[in-house]
Structures are given as C-alpha cells and as structure tokens.
C-alpha cells in the first residue's frame, strides 16, 4: 500500500530530515512511526501526502509513484488518504456536520449523498448527537473525532495520522485509539506518528522507529522502547521481526481485545456503541502507569 525506497529529504539550509528510508506497509496494516521530535516522523507523512517533494528516492502510495506525480494529480492522491493531525484542523465557524461535509463538498458530491455519509460517519465516531455544535463547544477528544470523521467520510484506503493524541490527555487518547483501531479493522491502512509510549505499548502493532531521519527499527507487535544493550540497528525493509522480549513486565493485553470480534460491517453502523472519552478500564490505568516520555 505504501512503499518508501531510499527516501532522503534535505530541507533548504541543509537540514537532513529523512535519510535513506526504506519502508513497506501492506494493505490493512497499522504502523506506528515513533521517535523523538525532529526525528523525521512528520516529514515522512508530509512526503507521503506530497506536501513536500523528496530530495532522493521514491514513494509509492496505493500503487502510484508519488514523487513522479504531476502536481495536478496530487489532489487525487490525497482523496485516497485520510489525514488526522494533532491540532485537528477544524474550521471554527462551521458546525461538526459542516466540517465533515466539507471534505465531500470539495469533491463535488451530491447533497443527499453528503448528508447520508456524514450522518453515518458521525455515528461511527460517536458524535451523532453533536452534529450541530461548533468545534469550540466540544472537548479536545470530541474535536479529534470530528477530524477523524472528516478523514474517514470518504472511505479512503489509507489514513495518515500525525500525533493524533498529542493534544489529548491519556484517557481521551485511549478513546481515539480505539476509534482508529476500529477504522483499521475495516481494512484501512493506518500509519500513525506518535511519541506516546503508553499507546504504542498497549496496542502492540508494528513499530517503525526513527532517529535523526533514519529508520533504526522496524518491528511487528513492537513496543515504543526497544530495550536492548547494543544500540538499535536498522532492520530489513518490510520484514516484520518477532517482538523482542525484554526484561519488562507486559502490563496488559492489547487495548481492543473486545473489538476483535466486531465484524467490519457492524463497525460502520455501530450506533449502539459510541466510543466515549471516559476512562475505559485497564487501558487507561496502563496509559497513566507507563507514561514516562516528555
């Protein structure tokens, strides 16, 4: 679904944001990009969206070479990618429903289709009663749900999330992660940049670690920290490695154990099970317990 080949990005002024990155993400995968601020996580996401051009290398997204794409085709690339950001990027003077509808209006969808899809997706994210609120009247977690709804309303095959929980407290973050997990279970490929240890450790998904622009670890069912005596080495591209068991207690099972049984179809009209921001059992405890990174 996403393939990076020897991708290097040097910004004007000589800052090397990404260096020789190789990465392969299969359809339906959930990948965490981890690493400290400035390690190149956001740059990778910008490159996949073609918000920036690579200096060297190539990036394929959904079968197309993004780096060689003429600029008039870029909008079509972006239609196949839902995006979620730390700062939500909602329009303050539009209601929740209008913010979500905006993504479809821009594509020229008929009004009736827009109305139906917006209602559906707001149900999905658990905001069905708040369609007419303005973003300011919502909590941070709810605002992020709106932005996820907007990213997903068009049912893109890929979703890129840059620190989606960065502005949220741990408990709220868990709710957002459950939502992203559900979306992932519909077959949507998700790449999420984060430096939230608790979330990564709880979800146990593939972890790609960046340091100073290099991919230094690529591990399936990984944790945030790769605790091993020698410094982390680069992993072969796209080859998921067995999780390295370290001398640390696994606090709990993955967050969405109970969601595993929910079939994809149910997910899309899961009106009866709104995902709330409330503290949700063991995950929340864990989230608070493991939180340690700045």
């Amino acid at each position, binding site marked *: 679904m996403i393939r990076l080949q020897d991708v290097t990005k040097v910004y004007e002024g000589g800052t090397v944001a990404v260096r020789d990155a190789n990465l392969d993400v299969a359809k339906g995968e959930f990948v965490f990009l981890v690493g400290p601020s400035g390690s190149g996580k956001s740059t990778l996401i910008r490159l996949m*969206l073609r918000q920036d051009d690579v200096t060297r290398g190539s990036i394929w997204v959904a079968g197309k070479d993004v780096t060689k794409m003429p*600029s*008039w085709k870029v*909008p*079509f*690339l*972006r*239609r*196949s*990618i839902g*995006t979620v950001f730390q700062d939500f*990027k909602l*329009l303050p003077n539009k209601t929740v429903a209008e913010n979500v509808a*905006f*993504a479809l*209006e*821009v*594509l*020229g969808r*008929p*009004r009736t289709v827009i109305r139906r899809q917006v209602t559906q997706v707001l149900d999905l994210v658990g905001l069905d009663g708040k369609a007419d609120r303005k973003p300011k009247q919502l909590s941070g977690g709810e605002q992020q749900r709106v932005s996820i709804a*907007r990213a997903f309303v*068009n049912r893109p095959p890929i979703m890129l999330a840059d620190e989606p929980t960065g502005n949220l407290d741990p408990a709220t973050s868990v709710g957002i992660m459950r939502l992203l997990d559900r979306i992932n279970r519909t077959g949507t490929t998700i790449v999420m940049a984060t430096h939230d240890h608790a979330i990564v450790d709880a979800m146990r998904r593939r972890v790609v670690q960046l340091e100073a622009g290099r991919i230094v670890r690529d591990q399936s069912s990984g944790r945030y920290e790769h605790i091993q005596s020698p410094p982390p080495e680069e992993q072969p591209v796209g080859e998921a490695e067995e999780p390295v068991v370290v001398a640390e207690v696994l606090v709990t099972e993955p967050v969405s154990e109970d969601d595993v049984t929910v079939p994809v179809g149910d997910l899309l009209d899961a009106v009866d099970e709104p995902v709330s921001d409330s503290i949700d059992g063991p995950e929340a405890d864990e989230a608070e317990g493991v939180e340690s990174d700045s």
Partner: protein
Amino acid sequence: MSRISYLLREAMVNMGRNALVVVGAILAVFVSLTLAFSALVLNELVKANTLQWQDGVHVIVWLKDEVRDGVTFEAQMGLLDQVNEWEEVESASFVDKAEAYQEFQEMFASNPAMLENVNPAILPASIRIKLNNIEEYRGVQLRLIDQPVVKEVTSPGESIEQLADLSNVLNMIGVVLAIIQGASAVVLISNTIRMAIYARREEIGIMKLVGASNWFIRVPFVLEGMLQGFVGAVFAVVMVFFARTRLESIDDTIGLFDFRVADSFFWKWTFLFLLFGALAGFLGSALGLRRYLKE
C-alpha cells in the same frame, strides 16, 4: 449545480470580508474604463463631425474659365472623369457656373450688395470631391494642382487636421491615464485576492488536504476578481451612458458640432468594456493567485 452555487457563495462571502479594499479595486476599474470609454467617444465625435463638415466635401477644385483661359468644357469633364477613377476618391461632382451662381445667391441672400456685384460669368465652375479618407486630402491636392485645367484647389483639410491633432492629443492623454489606472486596478484586485486568500488560508489548507482540485480552490478567487472588474465596468458604462445622454440633449441648432454618437458604436463598446472589466479582474486574480497561492 451545488458546486456552482457553492463557488458563487464563496466569492460573495469573500468580498463581504474585505469590503473596503474591494470598493477601492472596483473604483479603480471604474475610473480607468470611464477614461478609456470617454476618450473613445470623444474621438468618435471628432471624426463624425469633421467628416460631415461642408456636406462631406473634402476638396474643391476651381477650374479655369472657357472664356478667359480657353479651357473647354470637354477638358473640364475629362478631369472629372479622371478624378472619379482615383482610388482615394469616393465621388466627384461637377458644379457649373450657373449652379455656382445659384449657390452664391443662397449663401449671400441677406447681402444684396454682394449679389449685385456678381454675375454667373465671374464665378468659376468647380469639381467637388469626397474622399474615402479625409487624411488623403493633401496628396489629392498636389495631384490636382498640376492639372492644366485647374486654377486653384482648396480644402478644409487643414482645419480638420488641427482639430484632429487636438483630439489625438486629448485621446493620448486619456488612453495613457486609462492604462495607468487600469494597471493599478489590476494590482488592487490582486491585492484583494491576496487578502481573501489570507483570510481563508486555513480553509485552503484543509481543502488541499482532503483533495480539492486546484481549480476548485482557485475558481472562487477568480470569480471574485472578475466580478470586481465587471462591476467597475458596469459603473463606467453607466457613467458614459449618462454623459452621452447629456451631450445629446445639448442644443445643436447652431449646426457647428453634432454631439450624437451612433447607437451601434455605443453598444458595441459597452459590450467590449464590460468584457475588459471582467478581463482586468481575471488578470488581477491570476496575478494574486500566482503570487500568493503556492502549491
């Protein structure tokens, strides 16, 4: 359909936000196009009036006399035929001594003393020439003066030329001012577009993220610019229309100057100026978009 209404709504909302700058841009278009249109009308008036002076006779050829100079009627008619074949000449007609006397009588009907001293014999016959283009009068004059049957050639061309020169100078000033003002209108419109882009930068960012095509992002701004130019042009046309009505109501019984402009002329240029206005708006917004809406 919902797209078109969306785009138009966006353009209107934008203009509401920057009302003052928008008014400035519209006024600039208005002044520019009013100047240009007025210059054009003035030019047309001068042309129409000089052309119709002296019933459109541009050159008068006074012929030598049969009695005194021995020039035969056949020779005179020969010249007439010859002149009629020149390509600068629209038509030429012969006025004989009797007709000239009649004309003289009419012209000086109120002056019996003049009439008493004149008889048909002393008034020369003449050829009256209408030219296709009045500016060619000098060449025609030179060709005629060497003809053996010609006594003298006169033309109102010189005074027409002076008037034409004056109107050319006025026109030039008008056109230069109109161009300067037009350029400033384009720049002003590009500035309103910049403000509009700035006011909506967040929205534009999101539109790009969700995959709005470039034209979809740009069209509201282009429409906005074109609308500003068009509204300015409408004001200019209305202004000139009133000026024209006012001119036509001037009492022209003196018959010296005709202030009427042909409808066909006026409406043709009205249409063109509305187009110019929209075009100026288009240029302005294209400039604004190029400078301020980077990929």
